[in-house]
């Protein structure tokens, strides 16, 4: 299929495109189409050997292509004869009872009768090959008309209601107000509303009451914390490398906070994506100070750091990045094409290695982020320091000119010593003295002092480590820890002056001696400054300036350092045959996976490897370009995710895989329309939320709550959802009155590498005792907080599009027995206990936990429980203990853990 390495990417793309532009005019695969189902049957049973993967292809038959399927094969047979299933070899083979049966018995993939029947009908009806829905380049979608428009609150409702009407479903009830406010709080903030907010909303009769709640929540920082965590699932966020050795990523949290801030700022999603792929390379016009932090996206994945084979290691890192880019941004499992052409989707291996080349040209690094605050502050301090230095220089010159005020000499012009003079390397250009290596070093200088009096002794030296010694004058120690400072290095550029002492000198010869062992800093010069009435003021000023300088240097801010990526010398990747790095094949020019942008011609990446860029910037621009690149697919993928996070179910239920093996969209027109509107809306996620939350579709009553049959695939009725792990924990802390929603600004005291059981217990305790909102707790890969992992917290090793929801007894054990849960029950109880009588206490607890008052029966059961439980306790505080147990029981209840 691709035979020449010299072709430009666009060229082998053309040959691949032929693979899916099929005979008939493009048409969206809808519910009634036979091919939608047939293509899946073929994919599951046949394409492995008769599909896009050229290396595994048998009999030159490609059953995903109309042309190949309907032409006579070498054997003379024709696989598919449109209109004539009985003449079609395909039907003959899948129903054969002898050795000729397909797929071969060994594969265990035989078709069942109903699948054969579907194939037969499809062929009888003309064997209409349609394009896969993702491969239609300009899906046009107008909202359908509906019979009953009274329920249309948002345009998107038309798509949903039209389907309801088509299925003759009567309108579904609207949720009551208590359910609505509880639902929207958990949805946007991940926390329950307080009883006061519930009451305020229930009593607000203005038509904008609900819209106001939505706006208020979208403006709250809680929103970014809640929805940032959704995105963190998709980008497999973790604070350690996981897998083998599990080194900590001490700077990963910047990327987490960046995500949260970006969502709270409603950063246009296309820019959000460009920053995550190439925040370091964006044009000045688009760049924000923190753009580069976004490249944590590429850096924070799992890596086998101990892999001893560097080629394999790099290939695995790149593969992990491609896997994430494919699933998270494009909704395609591109990484399948590492070893062979994709079995089902039109992703040739060459596309994988085109993308791999870009990532091989990228390097992971710690990046300094030039925050405006930092730059301003640095500049301010630098200016002040410059002023101080200028004045110091002026004063020094003045001193030098005062006769007898300053005596200076080179250290290497000593009078007696056992240390060598170094005129090269460390002493290049200046000449220094240092130790010869491990001895009692000494050096003496004689000074002829014209007049007795006090002198300041200065030494100029360079030191990367502190090597203090004893300074004495005429045999008397003047300082025990002289020459003890660190200057940042051993070289001439690191040389600095330090005042070591203020000492009385006698007239005539004075001997200054310095001794130290076993090593000595690199001393360059000595200076004596006479303290006298004449220069007292000047010296005082010099000292003052010294102090100011030191203070200012301490104030110099450290730059923010983040985990990100940068470019390195660009290179093209070679195809690794069957994925093996030991078996490199032809070189592939860097490029993009065209599957995500059918029919578009990508912006070229300079193919010359001598040019200066990796192609990451072009990739970022291409992925987000609605017309020229994969922008429409990107929009569909994120819009589908957002829909899923609001409804618990996506329009495509496999959010990370829109390919042939993924699910078909239940409402393809809606998805395309939402994507188009989203792009038109400048990729604003907050506007998308408003659209969805203000729709009658989202505001339908809960199926389980009102006990009516729903149709999840038609979004008919709202499906109850269990809270995610973080929402459970945050809600517990919230009710306990202890939740801390301030961002965490460190990895937070956990140990990931080589942990002992004690370390792991400590990690567990860090989580257990923390009051931080869950999103701010470190995600130690391979050692996730047990509370989280038990409640289906995603495994951070790969992009997770949709979390599982299991109900297992270990969750029950945790809720019953974990001291953390019991503690929160106690805190909650204490907050409610202050209320007056038992009945009010019970009522207030219900209002807090469930946003509603208890029924009579529930009050009665609660009272009964309190009485029975009190009877089991012999000691004091029986009522309090019983009430804590009641709160704990209510936390165990299904109502606590579900949103209707």
């Amino acid at each position, binding site marked *: 299929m691709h035979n020449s390495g010299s072709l430009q990417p666009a060229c082998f793309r053309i040959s691949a495109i032929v693979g899916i532009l099929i005979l008939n005019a493009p048409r969206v695969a809808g519910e009634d189409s036979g091919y939608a189902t047939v293509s899946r049957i073929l994919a599951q049973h046949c394409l492995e050997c008769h599909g896009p993967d050229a290396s595994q292809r048998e009999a030159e038959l490609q059953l995903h292509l109309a042309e190949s399927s309907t032409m006579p094969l070498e054997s003379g047979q024709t696989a598919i004869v449109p209109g004539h299933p009985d003449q079609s070899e395909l039907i003959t083979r899948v129903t054969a009872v002898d050795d000729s049966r397909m797929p071969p018995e060994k594969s265990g993939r035989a078709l069942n009768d109903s699948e054969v029947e579907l194939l037969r009908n499809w062929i009888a009806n003309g064997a209409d090959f349609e394009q896969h829905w993702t491969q239609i380049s300009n899906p046009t979608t107008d909202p359908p008309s509906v019979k009953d428009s009274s329920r249309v609150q948002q345009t998107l409702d038309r798509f949903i209601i039209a389907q309801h009407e088509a299925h003759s479903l009567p309108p579904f009830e609207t949720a009551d107000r208590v359910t609505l406010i509880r639902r929207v709080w958990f949805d946007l903030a991940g926390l329950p509303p307080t009883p006061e907010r519930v009451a305020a909303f229930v009593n607000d009769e203005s038509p904008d009451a609900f819209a106001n709640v939505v706006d208020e929540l979208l403006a709250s920082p809680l929103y970014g914390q809640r929805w940032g965590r959704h995105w963190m699932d998709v980008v497999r966020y973790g604070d350690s490398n996981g897998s083998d050795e599990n080194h900590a990523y001490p700077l990963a949290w910047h990327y987490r906070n960046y995500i949260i801030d970006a969502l709270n700022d409603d950063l246009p999603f296309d820019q959000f994506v460009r920053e995550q792929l190439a925040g370091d390379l964006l044009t000045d016009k688009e760049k924000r100070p923190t753009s580069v932090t976004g490249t944590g996206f590429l850096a924070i994945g799992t890596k086998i750091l*101990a892999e001893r084979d560097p080629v394999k290691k790099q290939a695995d890192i790149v593969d992990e990045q491609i896997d994430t880019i494919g699933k998270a941004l494009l909704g395609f499992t591109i990484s399948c094409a590492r070893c062979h052409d994709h079995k089902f989707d039109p992703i040739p291996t060459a596309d994988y290695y085109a993308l791999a080349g870009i990532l091989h040209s990228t390097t992971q690094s710690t990046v300094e982020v030039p925050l405006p605050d930092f730059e301003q502050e640095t500049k301010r301090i630098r200016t002040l320091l410059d002023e101080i230095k200028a004045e110091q220089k002026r004063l020094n010159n003045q001193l030098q000119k005062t006769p007898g005020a300053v005596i200076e000499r080179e250290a290497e012009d000593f009078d007696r010593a056992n240390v060598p003079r170094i005129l090269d390397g460390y002493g290049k250009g200046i000449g220094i003295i240092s130790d010869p290596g491990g001895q009692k070093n000494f050096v003496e200088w004689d000074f002829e002092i014209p007049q007795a009096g006090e002198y300041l002794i200065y030494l100029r030296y360079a030191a990367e480590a502190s090597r203090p010694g004893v300074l004495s004058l005429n045999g008397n120690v003047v300082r025990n820890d002289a020459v003890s400072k660190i200057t940042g290095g051993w070289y001439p550029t690191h040389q600095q002056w330090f005042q070591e002492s203020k000492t009385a000198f006698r007239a005539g010869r004075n001997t200054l001696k310095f001794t130290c062992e076993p090593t000595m800093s690199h001393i360059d010069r000595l200076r004596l400054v006479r303290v006298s009435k004449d220069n007292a003021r000047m010296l005082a000023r010099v000292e003052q300036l010294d102090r100011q300088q030191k203070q200012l240097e301490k104030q110099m801010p450290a730059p923010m350092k983040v985990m990100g990526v940068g470019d390195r010398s660009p290179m093209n990747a070679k195809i690794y045959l069957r994925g093996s790095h030991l078996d490199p094949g032809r070189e592939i020019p860097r490029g993009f996976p065209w599957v995500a942008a059918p029919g578009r011609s990508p912006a070229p990446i300079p193919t010359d490897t001598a040019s200066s860029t990796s192609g990451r910037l072009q990739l970022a621009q291409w992925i987000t370009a609605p017309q020229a690149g994969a922008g429409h697919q990107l929009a569909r993928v994120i819009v589908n995710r957002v829909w899923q996070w609001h409804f618990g179910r996506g329009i495509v239920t496999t959010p*990370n895989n829109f390919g042939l093996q993924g699910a078909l969209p239940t409402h393809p027109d809606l998805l395309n329309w939402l994507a188009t509107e989203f792009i038109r809306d400048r990729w604003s996620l907050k506007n998308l939320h408003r659209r969805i939350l203000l729709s009658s579709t989202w505001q339908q009553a809960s199926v389980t709550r009102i006990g009516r049959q729903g149709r999840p695939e038609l979004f008919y009725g709202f499906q109850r959802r269990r809270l995610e792990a973080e929402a459970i924990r945050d809600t517990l802390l919230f009710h306990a009155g202890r939740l801390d929603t301030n961002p965490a600004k460190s990895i937070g005291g956990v140990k990931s590498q080589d942990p002992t059981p*004690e370390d792991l217990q400590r990690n567990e305790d860090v989580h257990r005792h923390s009051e931080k909102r869950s999103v701010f707790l470190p995600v130690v890969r391979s050692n996730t907080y047990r509370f989280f992992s038990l409640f289906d917290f995603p495994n951070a*090793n790969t992009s997770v599009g949709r979390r599982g929801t299991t*109900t297992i007894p270990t969750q029950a054990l945790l809720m*019953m027995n974990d001291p953390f849960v019991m503690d929160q029950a106690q805190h909650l109880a204490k907050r409610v206990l202050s209320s007056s009588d038992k009945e009010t206490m019970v009522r207030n607890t219900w209002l807090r936990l469930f946003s509603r008052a208890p029924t009579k029966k529930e009050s009665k059961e609660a009272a009964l429980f309190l009485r029975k439980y009190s009877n*089991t306790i012999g000691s004091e505080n029986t009522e309090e203990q019983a009430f804590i147990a009641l709160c704990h029981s209510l936390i165990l*209840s299904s109502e606590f853990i579900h949103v209707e």
Partner: protein
Amino acid sequence: MWNNRGSAQVSRRHTLSSMCLGFGGLAFQSLLAQEASSVQGPLAAQQPHFAARAKRVIFLFMHGGPSHVDTFDPKPQLQKDDGKKLPFEGSRVVFANRGNLKASPWKFRPCGEAGLPMSQLWQHLPAVADDLCMIHSMCETNVAHGGACMKLHTGDEAQLRPCMGSWVSYGLGTENQNLPSFITICPTSLHGGIDNFGPAFLPAIHAGVPLGTPGYPNTPAKDATFDFLKNSGRTRLQQRLQLDLLRQLHQSRGAGDTELEARLQSFELAFRMQTAAPEAMDISAESRATQQKYGLDQPETQNFARECLLARRFAERGVRFIQVSHAHSLPFNNEQWDQHSHLVRGHSINVRQIDQPITALLTDLKERGLLDDTLVIWGGEFGRTPTVQSGKGEFGRDHHPEGFTIWMAGGGVKGGFRYGSTDEYGYYATENRCTIHDFHATLLHILGLDHTRLTYPQSGRDIRLTDVFGNVATDILA
């Protein structure tokens, strides 16, 4: 969406696991092993693909990599060429600097009727030599611990995949619905940590449940417990009152809601597990003679003895997959078997710690009639080089994934049998090379599972333990 078999299985399992039923389903009435055609739920015992040779697995994991040429794979040529250069090209990728050939400091002797060679390190194990099936041609893990451990447990050193115990649980369910289907006793947190007993994308119910916090070094067996099994403040009666209140609240608001009913039942099951698990772990119920046989009374063996005895008790109660880890650290090496230096001291200590307990486990299983349908596996993530590791101190050997030995016992494998071989120095696996994928294929085959048919859909593919590889080593089957 998926093929027929997959679709039926997956959707049923998804539904059931999302409905609950946790460690095991609805069989509250039975505490002990129960072949459960009547039992429903994601962990209900499943029919294998074909007749199984073994029903359960005990995997004795030797963390760090035991040296094959010093334990079970004698090499006369190596003894002769001590100190000489390896006469052919060594591995392309190595872990540490390697020196010349180094003879084994131990003599070997034939053991059992079959004459299986064992080095003098082993004092007890020769008694069961005729039950052991040596695979001398293991290869293709990874040269670093992390990659090798993950490859051994999950079949892949880089991508997160379900481990073999999770696959077995997924394929066969379990016989005791009140205990986990897959228990890992005193696991290490190193080199993949929980990913080595994790389910990856399989339903969470198939996760290995650690007995003892995974750690480095691992938790001493006597301190090992399951998480959240005890309540610090409430009595059983008080917890009963809580669950009764839950039932009342459920009836007032959620009556007839099967999903919520299932959740309620998971609380009931948890309540019962609080009794069933401690009972299974109570080794004071074992006779003094049994305890002594395992070596519980001696300081050097007591830890691993306890792990082995617990393994037998779990096996008896129908747990499907039990991993036992020999994964402490030694003063001179980080990982138990990782003798880069001090080979003689290290391997001597290691064998002394496990020799008697393992021998006792095998004879005990045999006496109870359990060895016939229990597959016992012994091995580490790689072997050690026949060359010396250059460096200071007492001599040691480097990591060696090119050829090493793992043995199996019970479960319908040939006893007193040697399969495959390495070259004359023990460097490369030569005859009947057994890759990790082959090993996994064979393991599943013994349990009645076809490794090409045990699949789970993920990222648009049907993923299996053996990826796209794996051949069953049929020669070892009895």
